[in-house]
């Protein structure tokens, strides 16, 4: 009996090739647009996370401090929640580091009469606290120590990037919702057209004793097939430009700096299942309306 339903569903698809093609294309385009957005978002989020993981808070002292005061501050910072380690970086060490980084331009520092860099503590953060909100909170606590003159952790950039991501997330939800509704609407209408073209056949089936379930199941299978095919085509269409962009980024930058990835298998399958659900929902809405008349 199940094979009969599949047979009728496939016959239904083949009978209305144009209509089915339009529906599958609509699915594919909707999946393409929403998933392109999702892919960008996932990679941007990965980038943001890897950036956050590299963050250290630098606590600078305004003037030279006694060893006792330095020890005191170190203990205070170590006790703060989320702190992994605290390392003292003397102004001499900081200057040496700077010279190493500047390499050939190190001669620029030769004429300095005195070391302008302050003493500092480099504060590493435990993995669980590597989130922008927690980092900010910790930085504020360190800044509140009287002898600490300044703290620095790339707040401006982190905030900007974080805000842009939040905006993308919001736009993503809106776009996703919009395309979800549009696709359901189009699928429902396509199925309604298919039902309308088969209204005589459906009427005859009902007259010979077919249950609503017997009539509906092949249409549901049609919807699920349309959703699966549309989803696969949409993701395949997305993979082509993704591959091109990924190759270009790898050539232009270090892949460790911008690690970009396609959807993992579970997300890929999740997208196909969502697409099939949309197909089912479109069928459900139009069948409910059509068969209850």
């Amino acid at each position, binding site marked *: 009996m199940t094979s*009969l339903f599949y047979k009728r569903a496939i016959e239904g698809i083949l009978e209305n090739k144009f209509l089915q093609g339009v529906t599958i294309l609509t699915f594919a385009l909707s999946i393409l647009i929403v998933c392109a957005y999702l892919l960008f978002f996932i990679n941007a989020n990965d980038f943001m996370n890897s950036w956050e993981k590299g963050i250290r808070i630098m606590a600078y002292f305004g003037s030279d401090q006694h060893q006792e005061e330095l020890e005191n501050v170190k203990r205070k910072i170590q006790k703060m929640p989320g702190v992994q380690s605290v390392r003292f970086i003397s102004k001499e060490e900081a200057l040496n580091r700077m010279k190493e980084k500047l390499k050939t331009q190190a001669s620029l520092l030769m004429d300095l009469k005195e070391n302008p860099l302050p003493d500092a503590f480099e504060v590493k953060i435990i993995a669980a606290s590597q989130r922008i909100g927690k980092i900010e909170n910790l930085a504020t606590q360190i800044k509140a120590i009287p002898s600490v003159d300044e703290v620095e952790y790339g707040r401006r950039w982190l905030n900007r990037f974080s805000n842009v991501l939040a905006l993308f997330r919001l736009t993503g939800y809106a776009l996703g919702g919009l395309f979800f509704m549009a696709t359901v609407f189009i699928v429902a209408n396509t199925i309604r057209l298919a039902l309308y073209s088969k209204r005589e056949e459906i*009427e*005859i*089936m*009902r*007259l*010979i*004793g077919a*249950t*609503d379930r017997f009539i509906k199941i092949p249409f549901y299978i049609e919807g699920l097939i349309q959703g699966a095919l549309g989803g696969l085509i949409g993701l395949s269409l997305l993979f082509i430009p993704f591959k091109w962009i990924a190759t270009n980024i790898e050539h232009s930058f270090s892949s460790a700096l911008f690690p970009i990835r396609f959807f993992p298998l579970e997300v890929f399958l999740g997208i196909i299942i969502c697409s099939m659900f949309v197909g089912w929902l479109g069928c459900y809405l139009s069948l409910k309306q059509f068969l209850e008349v």
Partner: protein
Amino acid sequence: MIDGGDNSSIIRMFHVHKHYGSKKALINATLDIHRNEFVFICGPSGAGKTTLLKLLYLGDKVSAGQIIVDGINLSRIPRKRIPFLRRKFGIIFQDYKLISTKTVFENIALVLEVTRNTRRFIEKKVKSVLRTVGMEGRINAYPPSLSGGEQQRVAVARAVVGDPKVILADEPTGNLDAESSHIIFDFLNQFYNRGATVVIATHDLNLVRKTKKSVIHLNQGQIVA
């Protein structure tokens, strides 16, 4: 409220009225059809024959009155039980109602697919019925390529393939020549002889006279004899 009823009756109608707007299609119709009875419903065009048959398989609802089919009160039947009521009938429609995109075999097999029979049983049964109506040579033909008589024979085959309790035939010989009419009538008679109830709506009085079966006369929506 009427329910169940006389066990020897398969169809009972009590003071049934059917209106379409202001037009009265059936007026106060009361009748009783027994199991394994062969009945003609006669009357001129517009007398209410088709309406009467439609009310029996719930192709339409009564405006007033009650109908009992095989012990089921149609005014009380839940929507989801309607398909099971319809499976008690084999219906031959005036316009055949064959699905033009399906072959002769598929049209007939549909009745057995609905009742979830196996593929092997369906093939065997459909071929056997087609042989009986002399259509085994057109098993893969599509209805539009068949003549009126051939379509009628396919419609008859579809009506009987599920071994229904009641055959309802709406003008089954209406569009046919004398020979084709004779074949169809003989076939329905065979089915009656095997224990089915046959109800034929027709305006062909010659056929009725020749066969000497029970007759219900309808005129302007009323049973007159």
